[in-house]
């Protein structure tokens, strides 16, 4: 780790940026207040954690049993929805191990919201309204994952054969040598990052929707041919700002996905995460149809302020924390 130097006590963001950040937070709360959303707070140290192949939570030992610093407040907010919440939002810290770079800080500010009864289209509309209110760059361009790949990478991400995906992935800079031939999602991610994402939201925001079913995470899969996940993401200037789902309601499907993710984690050399959770119990008792979105607030500030690194909008990034 970098040793501390004499200037390390100072913030990396200018005061102007911190004022701007505080102003944006006021506007964000007004946005949700005007739409009847209730602001909630949920635990950061939880016995439950999201199980994702590529998300690594910090664990804290509390009297011999693990508590997980939340990678997002998703589980607890869904428990509120299962017990009657109509429309809720939260501004919270989220923690993700090893995510450190120009656009990442292991501890960051997340805005997450849910509204009962929303379909994916409703969820996209709400995200678009928020993007317009915060960024003032007009309505977002809405493009399906499939169309974006066809347009920018010349390949159908849902039906392409593995060999075609690999050929498309090798068109730009060299992919990681360890990317396995049969790692379909790995190749799709590589093409997304290298060839598609740079074209998303230059000037005008873009919302990508209908992800491959294999990348559903906690979204519902729409069973058409080929099936797609009702998941959507907001991009501005090629930067990913928010991720939303038409939420998965079926506890059995969640259980299966948890197992699949844990198998993949173990194969990747990572520890499996606890599969039983209070969310599963809440879903068994009945989670109402809803859509929800998580948005990286630091990145929203960055994009709105025209900054190109996250530390320009953080008082004290990780290496000065």
């Amino acid at each position, binding site marked *: 780790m970098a040793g501390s130097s004499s200037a390390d006590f100072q913030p990396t963001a200018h005061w102007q940026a911190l004022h701007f950040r505080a102003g944006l937070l006021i506007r964000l709360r007004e946005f949700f207040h005007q739409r009847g959303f209730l602001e909630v707070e949920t635990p950061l140290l939880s016995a439950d954690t999201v199980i*994702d*192949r*590529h*998300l690594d939570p910090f664990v804290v030992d509390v009297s011999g049993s693990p508590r997980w610093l939340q990678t997002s407040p998703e589980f607890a907010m869904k428990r509120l929805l299962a017990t009657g919440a109509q429309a809720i939002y939260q501004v919270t810290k989220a923690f993700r191990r*090893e*995510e*450190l*770079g*120009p*656009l*990442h800080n292991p501890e960051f500010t997340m805005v997450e919201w849910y509204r009962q009864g929303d379909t994916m289209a409703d969820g996209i509309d709400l995200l678009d309204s928020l993007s317009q209110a915060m960024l003032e760059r007009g309505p977002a361009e809405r493009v399906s994952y499939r169309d974006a790949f066809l347009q920018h990478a010349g390949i159908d991400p849902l039906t392409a054969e593995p060999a075609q995906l690999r050929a498309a992935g090798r068109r730009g*800079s*060299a*992919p*990681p040598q*360890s*990317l396995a031939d049969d790692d379909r*999602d*790995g190749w799709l*991610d*590589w093409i*997304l*990052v290298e060839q598609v*994402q740079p074209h998303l939201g230059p000037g005008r925001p873009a919302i990508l929707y209908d992800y491959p079913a294999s*990348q559903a*995470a906690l979204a519902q899969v729409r069973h058409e041919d080929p099936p797609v996940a009702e998941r959507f*993401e907001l991009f501005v200037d090629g930067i*990913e700002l928010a*991720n939303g789902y038409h939420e998965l309601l079926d506890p059995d499907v969640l259980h299966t996905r948890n197992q699949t993710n844990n198998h993949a984690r173990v194969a*990747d*050399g990572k520890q499996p995460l606890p599969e039983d959770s209070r969310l599963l119990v809440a879903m068994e008792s009945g989670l109402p149809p809803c859509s929800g979105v998580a948005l990286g607030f630091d990145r929203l500030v960055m994009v709105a302020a025209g900054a190109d690194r996250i530390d320009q909008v953080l008082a004290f990034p990780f290496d000065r924390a």
Partner: protein
Amino acid sequence: MASYNTSDFRKGLKVQMDGDPYLMIECNFVKPGKGQALYKCKLRHLIRNTVIDRTYKSGESLDAADVEEIDAQYLYRQGDTFVFMDNESYEQYELTEAAVDDAWKYLKEGMICSMLLFNNNPIGVTPPNHVVLQIEYCEPAVRGNTATNVTKPAKVETGAELIVPNFVETGEMIRVDTRTGEYIERVKE
């Protein structure tokens, strides 16, 4: 052999690939949505100075390169070979003309340089940032023209040709920035 995991990756790391030493000059963390974390790196070959792009998945590792920087005294040149001596161990090291690269322009006998060793073999040498060299020959100064922006070529004692201001004369000593090859000032003996 020691190795670095992706979470250790940072600018300035010295690593080894296919037996060659590289310096990590850039490392950017990117992570697509719910996807795998990637480290997009630029690596400079420490001998050839070529730069390559490599992307690593989270969890991969690179071997550490056994690269050491020592103080070495320049002794003499023999044909295409430059001979240096480690000031502490008195061990002698030979570098080829190609490995010395542009540094030959500034090398004076007895000069203390910084030498890079890879697996205990010398791979490059860097002279001090500022060196004093004597002008062996240049055209006489044009009288009355004292402006520093009028320049001329001058041959210095190492045999290199440098650009100096018009007022500099043969036999004078000048201070030179070895990183840019630029004249800094005249030095009184």
